[in-house]
């Protein structure tokens, strides 16, 4: 059995947190269920001695479930650990002894956790290249070299064209063959079909909820959007996710029917156009409670993919999953020209009737920062609304503290929006 400190620790802590919240704040417990489930599944799979594959979080996880592989996305782990009181500091500091501090914090978390011996050694690593950034593209193959484990990098074209989709779908198929060879685990296509069906059902709810969030007042708060992204990313293809999304949808639908918003007095509608503040998503609650400022949509948790069509054909399922991977938020915003990102920012602000956008620029996202000015100008030009920009490390409060972020938001709300 391969158990290691971080996974076991997070599993235990998430179980503890979920139990505590269920007792003390039962109305909020649903938000803690997905990460608790993710680590519960991972813990069980590792305990069963399944092969362990690390995968980059912008790869959709259904294929692993259909191969009976234990899957761990270090980026997902980083996002959860970042929210614990001790955060990811320890691992970032260890990593910075070996790589420059400007490498993205989620990658530094992975590097630090490996150097500390606190994560299970994988049997292989599956990752993307050029989807979305340099930091993630080099980290995974570098770690594969360091650990001397096999890796497969799915090359991602720059353009979104039918030719790109075909090329990437073929990369996807080659990745599966490589995984089969390296792990000895075979793809079970009956199981894949079942997994894809669960995935589709969950995604239908994701799309319906995204529509409901356009209503004024917005029926769900900002944190619901942020945790939904993580849930979809980690648990796609599970019955758990279908059930969890269905419950969220029912809450949203009922609120819309009653004309209720997530907050009693919605005064400001915001679209968050870069990484949510994962080290403390409580900032979203604070904005709502203090200013009636609701993050009605956040770009990086805006999952647009249509359910996969043609589930009777394994080729169609794989093509659908490949396309889903390319359509993942951040991936579709980051790997190609600026226009898809820019246009989506404008469209979201328009469709969700935003009063302003917030670009909380994660310092690890060089490509996001590079066009922040162009995007901010375009939003203002098209819609006449302002964008607040500030620098943060979404995973490490030592770059910009929670208090500083609150000050920036408060000043923005009070000066321009109220």
């Amino acid at each position: 059995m391969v158990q290691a400190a971080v996974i076991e620790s997070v599993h235990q802590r998430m179980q503890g947190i979920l139990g505590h919240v269920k007792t003390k704040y039962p109305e909020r417990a649903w938000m803690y269920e997905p990460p608790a489930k993710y680590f519960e599944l991972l813990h069980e799979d590792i305990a069963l001695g399944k092969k362990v594959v690390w995968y980059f979080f912008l790869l959709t996880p259904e294929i692993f479930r259909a191969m009976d592989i234990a899957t761990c996305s270090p980026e997902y782990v980083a996002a959860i650990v970042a929210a614990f009181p001790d955060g990811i500091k320890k691992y970032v500091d260890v990593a910075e002894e070996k790589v420059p501090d400007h490498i993205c914090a989620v990658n530094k978390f992975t590097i630090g956790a490996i150097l500390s011996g606190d994560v299970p050694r994988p049997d292989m690593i599956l990752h993307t290249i050029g989807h979305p950034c340099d930091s993630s593209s080099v980290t995974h193959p570098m770690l594969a070299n360091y650990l001397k484990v096999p890796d497969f990098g799915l090359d991602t074209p720059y353009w979104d064209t039918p030719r790109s989709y075909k090329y990437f779908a073929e990369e996807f198929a080659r990745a599966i063959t490589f995984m089969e060879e390296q792990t000895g685990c075979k793809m079970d296509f009956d199981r894949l079909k079942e997994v894809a069906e669960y995935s589709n059902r969950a995604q239908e709810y994701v799309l319906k909820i995204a529509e409901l969030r356009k209503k004024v007042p917005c029926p769900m708060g900002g944190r619901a959007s942020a945790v939904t992204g993580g849930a979809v990313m980690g648990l796609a293809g599970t019955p758990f996710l279908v059930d969890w999304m269905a419950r969220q949808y029912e809450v949203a639908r009922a609120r819309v029917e009653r004309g209720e918003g997530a907050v009693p007095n919605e005064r400001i509608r915001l679209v968050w156009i870069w990484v949510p503040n994962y080290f403390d998503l409580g900032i979203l609650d604070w904005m709502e409670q203090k200013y009636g400022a609701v993050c009605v949509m956040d770009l990086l948790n805006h999952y647009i993919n249509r359910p996969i069509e043609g589930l009777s054909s394994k080729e169609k399922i794989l093509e659908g999953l490949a396309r889903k991977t390319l359509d993942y938020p951040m991936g579709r915003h980051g790997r190609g020209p600026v226009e898809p990102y820019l246009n989506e920012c404008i469209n979201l602000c328009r469709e969700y009737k935003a009063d302003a956008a917030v670009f909380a620029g994660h310092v690890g996202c060089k490509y996001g920062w590079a066009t922040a000015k162009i995007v901010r100008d375009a939003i203002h030009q098209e819609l006449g609304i302002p964008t607040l920009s500030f620098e943060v490390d979404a995973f490490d409060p030592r770059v910009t503290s929670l208090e500083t972020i609150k000050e920036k938001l408060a000043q923005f709300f009070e000066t321009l929006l109220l």
Partner: protein
Amino acid sequence: MKASEQLLELARETPNDAVKRWKQQGKKIVGFFCSYVPEELVHAADLFPFRVKARGCTETPLADSLMAQVNCSFVRACLQLALQGDYKFLDGVVSLNSCDHIRRMYDVWRYRVDTPYHHFLSVPHKVSEEAVAWYRDEVSAFKGNLEKAFGVDITTKRLREAISVYNETRRLLHSLYDLRRSDNPPISGTEVHDIVVAATAMPKEEYNELLTKALQEIGGRKGISGHSARLMVLGSVLDDPSLVSVVEELGGLVVADALCFGSRYFWESVKEVGDPVENLARSYLKRPACPRMATEHPSRMEYIKMMVKDFAVDGIILERIRYCDLWGGVSMVLQKELDEAGIPVLVLDREYILSGVGQIRTRVQAFLEMMG
């Protein structure tokens, strides 16, 4: 003026005399941002491919207003020169997904710099037959796009001729590098660096002629002696030899490199028989790899070790421009493997506009002393 001196001058100035002469003929120039752009296509279209660089940039206020501090200072310096009009002589630019900074600088360039022609190549990040096939189609599309935009016909014959001219450049540059293999090379690393940079800043026929003469001049020189160590430089883009110059002022002699304005630019020839478009795609994709080719770490290490052996390198300087995640990211494994191979490495973080020279000098000096 000697041929070698002419080359050094052409490398230093933007726009240089070669650019001015070309424009006086009423001909057009296409800028490119990365060594993975197959220049031969541009050449075959009777256009002058000029690699965008930032030599001479001393501050970046205009670029800083559009990009951010977390964007690499080389890219901001290039954009600065464009915004202040230094690249007005370009009739077009071609870029690719080299790195996050360059591809996004291209976005900003499209929005804020008035250059008439733009093209972007989606270059695979790995070497495989499928990737070669993809890149072949990209190169083919680029060819069609150039033909349409500039009203030219890039025939197979013209493309083969361009490949042949470029292979001659590569052969000559190999001859230049061969001179560095001796115990007492007749040329410094600083000069070599500028001679390679000049290759990206002037038409190749003219360059080949000058380099042929320069090789004769350099071959007749007395070898350099008294250096304390033979060094290799690798890392982020380096279009200005100031860093190399600092190293050599302190007694080191740079005899090899793995730079995109260095050996990686010309090391591999392009096959001259067969489909020239496919040959270009295959050759450019398989050239000694930058870390953008994320899965090519083993071949990259092999290349570095080959250079160390063939050029009798005593130590390596790995220079990283701040915020370059590609070189920053691979450096952990690179250092580990070089340590295991017993090759001393000095990692230098720097900004494009060379500041903190004092600190760099101190560290290089200590490194040279450490190697004895």
